[in-house]
C-alpha cells in the first residue's frame, strides 16, 4: 500500500472513531446550533432534510456504539487473566511472554505467546520501570490496562 493511501485510511479511520465516540455531543451541536441556523438561513425544508439525514446517521451510529459497548463488556468477561513478562536478552532485544486465561464457554484455557521484540517496541512504562529499578525481568498486568482503557472508552462514550 502506498504511504499516501495508508495515510488517508488512517485519517478516515481516526475521524470515524472520533465521530462514534463523540456522537451524542455532535448531535447536540447539530440539534441546537446547526439545524436552527440552517432553518433561519435556508428555510424549513432544507433544515428538515438535514434533520432527517442526521436521524438516519443517528440510528446507525448509536447501533455501532451499542455494539462496541457490548463487545468491550463481552471481552471483560472472556479474558480472565492476562499478563506479559519481559526479559532483557541483550541491549537491543527482549523476550515477551504473554499468558492469557480465556473463559471458553465455561471451560478455562491457557494461551501462551512467546516472541522476541526490539527494545524500542517495548511499552514506555515497562522500559522506564526496568531502567529505574535496574530489573532484567518485569511483568505487566495487561488485563488491568485493557480494562482501564475499555472503561475509559465507555465513559468517553457516555459523557
Amino acid at each position, binding site marked *: 500500500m502506498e504511504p499516501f493511501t495508508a495515510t488517508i485510511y488512517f485519517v478516515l479511520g481516526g475521524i470515524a472513531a472520533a465521530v462514534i465516540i463523540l456522537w451524542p455531543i455532535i448531535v447536540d451541536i447539530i440539534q441546537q446550533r446547526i439545524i436552527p441556523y440552517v432553518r433561519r438561513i435556508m428555510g424549513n425544508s432544507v433544515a428538515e432534510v438535514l434533520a432527517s439525514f442526521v*436521524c438516519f446517521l443517528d440510528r446507525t451510529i448509536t447501533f455501532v456504539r451499542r455494539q462496541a459497548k457490548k463487545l468491550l463488556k463481552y471481552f471483560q468477561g472472556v479474558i480472565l487473566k492476562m499478563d506479559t513478562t519481559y526479559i532483557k536478552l541483550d541491549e537491543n532485544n527482549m523476550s515477551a511472554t504473554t499468558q492469557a486465561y480465556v473463559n471458553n464457554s465455561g471451560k478455562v484455557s491457557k494461551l501462551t505467546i512467546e516472541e522476541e521484540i526490539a527494545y524500542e517496541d517495548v511499552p514506555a512504562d515497562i522500559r522506564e520501570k526496568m531502567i529505574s529499578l535496574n530489573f532484567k525481568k518485569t511483568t505487566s498486568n495487561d488485563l488491568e490496562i485493557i480494562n482501564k482503557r475499555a472503561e475509559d472508552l465507555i465513559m468517553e462514550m457516555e459523557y
Partner: protein
Amino acid sequence: MLIFIKKILFVGLSVSIGYYLLRVLNKKAKEEQKIIEKEFKDNTCKVLYKIFEEFKEESLELNKKDILKGKLEIINIVLPNIIRIELLLRKKKASFVSKKINVLYSQKNEMKCKSFEEEISWDNVPKVNRDEFIIENNKTIAYILFEKGDDNECMEKD
C-alpha cells in the same frame, strides 16, 4: 491517464462499499431498535407498578400483568385517586436523557405528586424520541400515559 482512472475507480468502490455498509448497519439497527423500545416500555411499566404498590392499601386489587403490559385504563377502577400520569424526557447533557415519571393523585382533597427519575444513556433512548429531540429541537418531551376518565392508550403522545 490509467492511474487517474484507477484512482477514480478506487474512490467509487470505496464509496459504494461505505454506502452498502451503512445500509446493512441501518437495517440491523432497525431490528435492534424494536428491542430497545420494548425494554424502555417494560422498564416504564415496572416503575409504574412499583409506584402503584404504594397506593395498594387504598386500592382494590392491582393486576400486575395488566400494568406490566401497559394497560393503564385499569387504574380508573383500582386506583381512583390517581388523576394523571406523565412521562417526561429531558435532555440534561449531550449523552444523557433524564426520564421522569410523575404520578399526580389526590389525597384528602389535596393534589399530590409522586415522581420517579432516572438517567438513561442517549444510546438507550428509543429512536422515536431521539428523532423528536433532533427534529423538533426540544429540550423536553412530555407524554401523558394516563388521564382520569379518559380511555387513553398507554404511551399516547401529548
